[in-house]
């Protein structure tokens, strides 16, 4: 469970996030939709403590993020961003094994999970495990980043426009792969930042629209297309 209580983030006198209150239940699949600068990325980054709120409080599992041991908390939260940001000096396998190693999993368990997950993402471990990130295409790198975020069965998965840098065909493919890889995880809460309506509706069950640091629409995904809010209309018609 993620709870925002009047969360504001102020940078250089501007409220990037303006007194946001929001509750996301365990297992929900939520999209943060908005134009660039609307505050959706900031809203994401306060969850794993990459940013601290200027005012208000954000709680994960009932306890404020500020009171968690951040490294421990972050090992339970998967994070994928627009750039794959793989560790360039580590192989695909070692990249994927990052969190299991931090959690001191037995090596066989790490290997078995990596194998299962990479197969699901169409990057068989036997073929790709020993390769270095520079040997992969952008789409392949992003799939490794997804595997790296999902491998330890995190309770929360945060995605910040993970497919925006990919070309449209690969993008649609990645959306389906991602949906399949996360679908069978009923206990995993997903928060997915995007500016793409179709992507939001494909992946999420609940859509939250940000504008100027505030939440302007919060609706089930299947009611989104008919939502009367003018910003929604503009998104739908675009």
């Amino acid at each position: 469970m993620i709870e925002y209580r009047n969360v504001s983030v102020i940078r250089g006198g501007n409220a990037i996030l303006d007194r946001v209150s929001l509750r996301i239940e365990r297992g929900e699949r939520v999209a943060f939709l908005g134009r660039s600068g609307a505050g959706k990325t900031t809203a994401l980054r306060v969850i794993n403590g990459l940013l601290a709120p200027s005012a208000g409080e954000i709680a994960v599992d009932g306890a404020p993020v500020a009171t968690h041991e951040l490294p421990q908390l972050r090992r339970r939260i998967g994070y994928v961003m627009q750039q794959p940001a793989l560790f360039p000096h580590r192989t695909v396998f070692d990249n994927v094994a990052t969190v299991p190693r931090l959690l001191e999993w037995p090596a066989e368990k790490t290997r078995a999970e990596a194998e299962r997950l990479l197969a699901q993402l169409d990057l068989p471990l036997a073929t790709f495990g020993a390769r270095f990130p520079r040997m992969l295409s952008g789409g392949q790198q992003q799939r490794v980043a997804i595997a790296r975020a999902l491998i330890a069965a995190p309770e929360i998965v945060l995605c910040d426009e993970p497919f925006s840098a990919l070309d449209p065909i690969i993008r649609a493919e990645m959306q389906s792969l991602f949906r399949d890889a996360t679908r069978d995880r009923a206990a995993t809460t997903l928060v997915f930042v995007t500016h793409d309506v179709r992507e939001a509706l494909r992946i999420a069950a609940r859509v939250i629209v940000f504008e100027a640091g505030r939440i302007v629409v919060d609706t089930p995904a299947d009611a989104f297309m008919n939502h009367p809010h003018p910003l929604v209309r503009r998104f739908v018609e675009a």
Partner: protein
Amino acid sequence: MSDLARLTGEHLLIVTIAVAIAIAAGVPLGTFAHRRRRLGGLALRITDVVQTIPSPAMFGFLIPLPFLGGIGPRPAIVALVLYSLLPIVRSTLVGLERVDPHVREAATAMGMTDRQLLWNIELPLATPAIVAGIRIATVTAIGVATIAAAIGGGGLGTLIFRGVAMVDTKLILQGAVPAALLAIAADAVLTQVEHYFAKRRGES
């Protein structure tokens, strides 16, 4: 010939000891400079100033100092350490600054502690730059070490100074040519090491 071999050995020994000490001090200093910008900037300026002291003057300053100074190999090593420090501190700092901020953010978001981030990600990625600094430090130290003979530091400079005193060009060259060859060889070997690490971190 055995004289030449002994002096070459001495030369290599004082350079190796000095560069080893400079690495042991310089890499942590560079890391610290990266974490604490203001103090780091100060440390960098001090090593900068040290670097501008001409080497004969440096040896002169060291002679009256107790313990570290005086005459012999010890003050020679101290001087070489001081000269080697700047390139190593600076290259460590530059190497750490060049780490992609997204990579750093990914490591943090995965749940690495600051220490894990440093050892698992930042230092390995900075290694090619650090090796480049070590290479520059070593080549400089091999050159400066020839002057260390002036304060009894030993090494190939002994032949050069003896040759100058005796106006014996052959003797000067017996010291100067091996010293130059050492510098060239060290440069070539460490360039290879640098390429090896650059390749491993995925640059080429």
